C-alpha cells in the first residue's frame, strides 16, 4: 500500500508544481513506483514541467467520469523507470471532479504505487478540497514572504480541520544573502510563526528555471544547490534522517540544525 502526499500552499506561484515534479522524479530514481497527479484542473501545468505535454491522451476527468481506465490515462515517463503522470483536464473546471471521486482515485492508485503525489491548485476552494480529499499527509510549500506565509498558515488550519495531521513545511526560493542581511525572513522566523515541522529548504536557483525550460527536473542536476536540497527532501520523505546542512541549505539555523525526517 502506497502513501498519498498532497503538495499544497494556498498562494500560487510558490513552487508546488516544481516541488511535485522534483519529489516524483527523485522518488522514482530511488527505485519507487510513483504516480504524480495534477489536480489543478483547468490550469494543467505539471505535464509541461515534466516535459510530457505531447503524450497526453486522457486526463483525470476521463478517469473519474469513467470514460477510460486509470491505466490508460497514466503517462509513463520513459526517462525514469516507475514514474507516471495523471494529467489534469485543461478544458474543464474544478467542479468536474468531486472529493469522493478523488478519494476513490487515490485509493486505486495507492494499490499500485509506492507514492502518489498530488499537485494541488492555489486557493482554498473546491480544487483544494479535491486535492486533499484522498491524501494521507500534506507538504506545505511557502516562500519567505508575508503573503505566502500567511496563506500557508491558513492552509495549515484547513488541513487540521480536514484531519490531515502533521503537515511538513518546505520553504522555497530562499536567498541566503538577503537572509544574512536581515532583508528576508529566515527559516527560523517562519517555523516560529507557523509552528509546523520543517521538511526542507530550497534556495532560489536559476537552474530551476533552466531545467524547467527543458522539461527536466532540477533534482537530476548534480551540481545545483536546489537539486541537492530536493534530493535531501526526497530522502527525508522515504523516512531517512537527513541533517539540514547549514551551508548548503541556508545557515543561521542553529536551533533547527538537527536531524529531520518525514515519518
Amino acid at each position, binding site marked *: 500500500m502506497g502513501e498519498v502526499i498532497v503538495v499544497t500552499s494556498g498562494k500560487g506561484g510558490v513552487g508546488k508544481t516544481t516541488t511535485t515534479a522534483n519529489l516524483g522524479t527523485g522518488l522514482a530514481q530511488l527505485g519507487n513506483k510513483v504516480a504524480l497527479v495534477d489536480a489543478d484542473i483547468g490550469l494543467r501545468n505539471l505535464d509541461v514541467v515534466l516535459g510530457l505535454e505531447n503524450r497526453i491522451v486522457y486526463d483525470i476527468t476521463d478517469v473519474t467520469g469513467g470514460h477510460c481506465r486509470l491505466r490508460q490515462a497514466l503517462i509513463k515517463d520513459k526517462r525514469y523507470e516507475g514514474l507516471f503522470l495523471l494529467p489534469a483536464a485543461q478544458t474543464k473546471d474544478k467542479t468536474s471532479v468531486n472529493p469522493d471521486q478523488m478519494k476513490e482515485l487515490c485509493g486505486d492508485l495507492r494499490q499500485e504505487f509506492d507514492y502518489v503525489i498530488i499537485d494541488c491548485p492555489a486557493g482554498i476552494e473546491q480544487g483544494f478540497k479535491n486535492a486533499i480529499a484522498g491524501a494521507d499527509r500534506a507538504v506545505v510549500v511557502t516562500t519567505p*514572504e*508575508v503573503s505566502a506565509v500567511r496563506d500557508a*498558515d491558513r492552509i495549515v*488550519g484547513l488541513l487540521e480541520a480536514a484531519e490531515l495531521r502533521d503537515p511538513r513545511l518546505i520553504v522555497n526560493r530562499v536567498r541566503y544573502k538577503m537572509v544574512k542581511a*536581515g532583508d528576508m*525572513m*529566515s527559516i527560523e*522566523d517562519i517555523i516560529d*510563526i507557523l509552528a509546523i515541522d520543517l521538511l526542507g529548504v530550497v534556495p532560489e536557483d536559476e537552474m530551476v528555471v533552466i531545467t524547467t525550460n527543458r522539461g527536466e527536473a532540477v533534482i537530476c542536476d548534480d551540481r545545483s544547490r536546489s537539486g541537492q536540497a530536493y534530493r535531501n527532501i526526497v530522502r527525508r520523505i522515504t523516512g531517512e534522517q537527513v541533517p539540514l546542512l547549514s551551508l548548503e541549505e541556508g545557515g543561521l539555523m542553529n536551533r533547527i540544525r538537527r536531524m529531520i525526517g518525514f515519518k
Partner: protein
Amino acid sequence: MLDFITRIFGRESNASKNVAKERLRLVLVHDRSSVSPQILQDLKADLIKVISSYMEIDEEALEVNFENSENQVALIANIPIKNVKRPANVV
C-alpha cells in the same frame, strides 16, 4: 562614524525582515481569531447580557472587532449607551 554605528546597531530592528515578521505576527493573530464569526457573535450576545444589567445599550449599534494597534492586537468593543440605570437599580 556615528552614521556607521547607527547603521550597525539600528540594523537589527530596522531590518526589513523584522518588519515582515511583525506584520505577519499581527495579521495572523487577526486571521486565526477571526476564523469563526460564530465566536464573535456569541461574544456579542454575552457582552449585551452582562452590560444590560448596568446600563441600557443600543444593541443594534454594538460593534466588536479585532484591531491592530502598534504592536498588539486588541479586542475593540464600541457599545453606544442609551441610558444608565439608577444606582438603586443595580444589584
